[in-house]
């Protein structure tokens, strides 16, 4: 789960990382109230999960109430690269003398945590890494051992942070590591981490991605789910616990396992079709999950045929078949579907499907053949 900037700052604050004083606003009046609380001058910032907010006019400085009204009014509802702004973060504007960068994430290749600090913050860190790799200090951390103050000191010294910023930065790094590990984040990043003229170090931005697999031990994450910016289809899918990604085509895809689901999209593409979505019902999906998946797919008006590709391992064929039957009873499905079912209890599943009398439900023995049939049906219904 990617957090919005304001959520990331609230999250950082829980771990003792200093952030600017500010608050959330969904209306112009709320923005004015938050600006009063934060103290002028303030920065009014669009809350969208997309880069380039500043250039798009989504981040503005305001020195008085009239300016807050003007900017908040302009930014709410603004479309930034397809993301419509519904919420603002209004915070006290900081004086900046230096901008740094700090982050922790997992290096999958090294199978260890990677901590990175740079004295060149405030810009795309990929650019720094490409153009001036020496400016990015890195340290590998053994997850079974942890991160020490000595390592934090080594990082800020190697990165060449200004002397007066070092102690503050070390404290923030130690807390940022806690936010990463104890907080079960996949990524924590501060860019920029700033030094103010009076010698304080604090986080001016917050980028946090939480590990959804760890949500069972973080009931407090519910707070972060208050607004979503997924499209309607993705929202519906998520509310039903499905792994769904909307695509632009017209063949609805349901498969079990990410690999097979991706492969199914690829094969539909190869036979001349275009997938409407990626939908992975996961391992061990039962009839209820299958029925939910069909509901999500059929809610997409672009979908002209459905390709259900199931290779049972932990998922059992009869559960899938029962789910399809349940869905047919629960919702009126007028879109043709092609089902390919193999693996665990596939025979039982096929027997159940044989009792479905709808002429909209077709079976196909192989993945490639099923893909061709699904694309054909979609084209003929156009």
């Amino acid at each position, binding site marked *: 789960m990617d957090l919005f900037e304001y959520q990331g700052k609230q999250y950082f604050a829980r771990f003792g990382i200093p952030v600017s004083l500010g608050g959330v606003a969904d209306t112009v009046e709320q923005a004015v109230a938050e600006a009063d609380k934060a103290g002028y001058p303030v920065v009014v910032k669009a809350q969208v999960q997309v880069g380039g907010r500043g250039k798009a006019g989504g981040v503005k400085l305001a020195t008085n109430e009239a300016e807050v009204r003007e900017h908040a009014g302009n930014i709410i509802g603004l479309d930034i690269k397809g993301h419509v702004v519904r919420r603002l973060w209004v915070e006290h504007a900081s004086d900046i003398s230096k901008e740094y960068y700090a982050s922790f994430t997992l290096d999958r290749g090294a*199978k260890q945590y990677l901590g990175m600090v740079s004295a060149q913050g405030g810009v795309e860190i990929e650019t720094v890494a490409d153009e001036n790799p020496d400016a990015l200090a890195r340290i590998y951390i053994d997850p079974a051992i942890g991160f020490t103050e000595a390592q934090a000191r080594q990082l800020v010294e190697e990165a060449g942070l200004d002397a007066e910023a070092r102690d503050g930065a070390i404290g923030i790094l130690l807390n940022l590591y806690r936010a990463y590990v104890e907080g079960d984040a996949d990524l924590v990043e501060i860019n920029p981490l700033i030094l103010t003229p009076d010698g304080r170090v604090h986080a001016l931005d917050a980028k946090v991605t939480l590990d959804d697999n*760890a949500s069972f*031990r973080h009931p407090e994450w519910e707070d972060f789910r208050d607004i979503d910016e997924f499209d309607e289809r993705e929202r519906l899918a998520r509310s039903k616990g499905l792994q769904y990604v909307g695509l632009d085509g017209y063949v609805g895809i349901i498969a079990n*396992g990410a690999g097979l689901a991706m492969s199914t999209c690829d094969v539909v593409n190869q036979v001349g079709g275009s997938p409407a979505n990626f939908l992975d019902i996961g391992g061990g999906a039962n009839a209820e999950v299958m029925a939910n998946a069909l509901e999500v797919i059929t809610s997409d008006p672009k979908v002209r045929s459905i390709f259900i590709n199931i290779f049972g391992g932990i998922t059992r064929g009869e559960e899938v078949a029962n789910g399809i039957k349940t869905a047919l009873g629960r919702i009126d499905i007028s879109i043709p579907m092609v089902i390919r079912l193999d*693996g665990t209890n596939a025979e039982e599943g096929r027997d159940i499907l044989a009792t479905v009398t709808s002429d909209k439900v077709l079976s196909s023995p192989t993945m490639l053949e099923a893909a061709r049939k699904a694309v054909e049906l979609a084209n003929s219904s156009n």
Partner: protein
Amino acid sequence: MSIFVDESTTVIVQGLTGGQGRFHGLRNKAYGTKIVAGVTPGKGGQDVEGIPVFDTVAEAVAATGGNASFVSVPPKMAAGAILEAAAASIPFIVCITEGIPAHDEARVYNTLASQYPTTRLLGPNCPGIISPGKTNIGITAGEIALPGGPVGIVSRSGTLTYQALYELKQMGVGVTTCVGIGGDPVPGTNFVDCLAAFQEDPETKAIIMMGEIGGAEEEKAADFIRSSVTKPVVAYIAGVTAPPGKKMGHAGAIVSGNTGTAKAKMEALAAAGAHVVNNPTEAGEKMAEIVKGL
């Protein structure tokens, strides 16, 4: 021959009394796998259709001599279960659990590496391992695999593992061992481990590798194929049509920037001499052609 396991492997199922553990443990047993014990804390002394259940892995090992573990427990218990098996000196651990927090996985991997360097973990979030006709540890439906070789399979995706077995069976081609390494960020066993083992195995004459977008493991495998694999390799990568920046289902499949794209992986593998194919069916067809020419 087979890699990592064979007909003499004796298996302890951690979580045998749970729904999945019971279903798949018994199914493995019916396949011919030597399932010697189950482990569920607090249920020691019971049995599951004649398979004795113990409270701890150490007790199960002492009583039965089991030398492999099949971990089928919920995500919050998985890290502890794996480390318990390692501490009980189990040399080969298969963990099928999906949804383990990434930090737990990273800690387990590095703890195994430093404290139990001879223990091999397969998974988590993997379908397991099957040496057709000999043993099947995990959730693969055994009937989709043809025994006898000469092909070894290694795959990052569970369902694509089944697809590969199925395609080969359609072509009448047998398999020595099929290893599903799983798609999580920190797998215990990777492509290179399996490619190296297949290269050493005299009965494996050719290898199918099923990869997917995200990470750099396929690129590492390509380097290894170039330097150290003399047997023919057929490679397939899923996710050509996946949009960048989207997380496709499990943690493994995410593309950022130019790294980890299907195209980059396919190019690296082709440059290393692998036969790169466009879909699982082509993988089966290409492999059948190679096997015919052996």
